[in-house]
């Protein structure tokens, strides 16, 4: 088994122009910040150019739920259904499915100080699934928190 790792950081306050990948996702202009960022990350990593079934299972680890999308939803009056659909941590992975034209099992974990072992659980599953069944796993770790340079960070790990 080999592991490839990817990293993508972005300034969430910078206005995003029409992305080059816009044709891969329906109504890309309605995406929330996180969904937009994960698509940009996958595009930068050039994963869309590889096989559509690049991996067999996908684990998405995030922190702080969907706080930003939740807050954007309550700030709008009248309430917008197009905002409400992003108020779940599991929606960004659904957008990734569209982006990569991929389908398969997705496991969404939320990392808190107590459940900090989300990464460990994901890696254990990736290794045991490969060893027992030859399954390839993609793990995406996405944080809402900004780092010292006011950037958000997305990391990807492909076990194949």
């Amino acid at each position, binding site marked *: 088994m080999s592991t490839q790792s990817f990293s993508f950081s972005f300034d969430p306050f910078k206005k995003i122009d029409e992305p080059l990948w816009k044709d891969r996702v329906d109504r890309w202009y309605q995406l929330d910040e996180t969904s937009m960022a994960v698509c940009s990350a996958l595009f930068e990593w050039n994963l869309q150019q590889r096989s559509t079934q690049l991996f067999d299972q996908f684990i998405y680890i995030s922190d702080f739920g969907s706080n930003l999308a939740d807050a954007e939803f309550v700030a709008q009056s009248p309430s917008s*259904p197009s905002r409400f659909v992003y108020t779940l941590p599991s929606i960004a992975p659904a957008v990734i*499915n569209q982006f990569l034209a991929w389908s398969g099992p997705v496991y969404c974990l939320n990392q808190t100080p107590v459940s900090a072992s989300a990464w460990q659980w994901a890696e254990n599953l990736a290794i045991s699934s490969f060893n027992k069944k030859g399954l390839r796993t993609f793990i995406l770790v996405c944080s809402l928190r900004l780092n010292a340079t006011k950037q958000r960070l997305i990391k990807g790990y492909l076990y194949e």
Partner: protein
Amino acid sequence: MMKISYADCWTAAGLGSEIFMSGLYNGKDHSCFVEADQWSRLVPVGGKICQIQSPLSTTSEENKTKFLTYSEMQKKYFQILWQRFLHHLQSQLTKTEQARFTSEKILFLLASTKGSVEDYIWDFQADPQKSRQAPDPFEGLVSFMDEQVKSSLAEWGAPITVDFQVVSQACASSHLAIEMAHLSLHNMDYDHAFVFALDSLGPFVYQGFHSLKVLSTTVNRPFAADRDGLQLGEAYTLHLFSKKDISKQSNSCQILAVASETEGGSVTRPSRDGGSLLRALFKVHQQASVKPDFWVAHGTGTLFNDLAEEKAIRIFQKELNLSVPVTGTKWSIGHCLGASGALDLIAACAVLKNRKLFSLAQTQKLDPQFETKFQLNGSVNANEGFNLQSKVQAAMVTSLGFGGVHAALLVQCKLDRVDD
């Protein structure tokens, strides 16, 4: 395969599985009109919800001194279910067995869509960007659970290893947590996995579903020709899954197979052909070729969900040459979001043990497009799908979630004896 060593729930019907099942068998709809004055944010009144009848449920500013916040309320409900579990296990296990249980490796999965987001999210209406510093919606509860579980089990006299994970996967959260429990028991070195599933109702959730225009303005009628939407519910469930059954109870149930699939279509609507649910069903069949004797469907009562789910069920049953009755729980207890799959599992196990199926009591006339055999009102005791002489029977339980996450599980119960 994994054993169901324990199951309990708290729903709008009351505390415990028995009262939940009693409502299903008696055709009782537990919904009531939204009491908007209990919520600090005025919501568009008009729909019904199935809310746990408790003075705890509010975040209203003026009542904060009298009532608990969502986070406090969820901790309280967890504490009650956890104490009931400890009491049950203490009555079942000897001291030696208790020590053995706590020396084994335990996973604890919290399954929820929104956690306690209602407590703080309305504070960011003026500036959503400030929500970057907001607390994690699950952190308070999972910290509390960690402390409660470890301290109470430590009293049983052995070192314990309990790992906590939070699964937030829309309305399929329960099924995904059960699948992750299954993977953890089989692929990793865990011996037991708890799944605590919950979702609480508040103005955020209500307003969201209201904006999607999917709330029923009358009563919830899954799979009916005149269905007009879902009704929201809230529930808390606690399950213990084990490699080996530790419950010592008769008529034990076990999960034979569980699988999930996704589809990259619309974020809110499943594909019209129910494609990913069908793939999940065939994966379940690959894991365990046992045919179900009946079916507990997700059955939200919305136009598109029911359409996709019925199609997947129909194709799967046809492929396996099956025609088993399909029922559901949401007409009685509401759509309990992240907890709905765990509740449906409790209902399926109760039917397997009682050999009595509940109906879709409020569905009078089926959608003429549907060909599947649904268990409708007035046919509660018909149970055409049941062979009452068979000691072993199985049920399929399906779940659909936003973002195209669809899942299915197959549960089997072996009766010690058959009375009839």
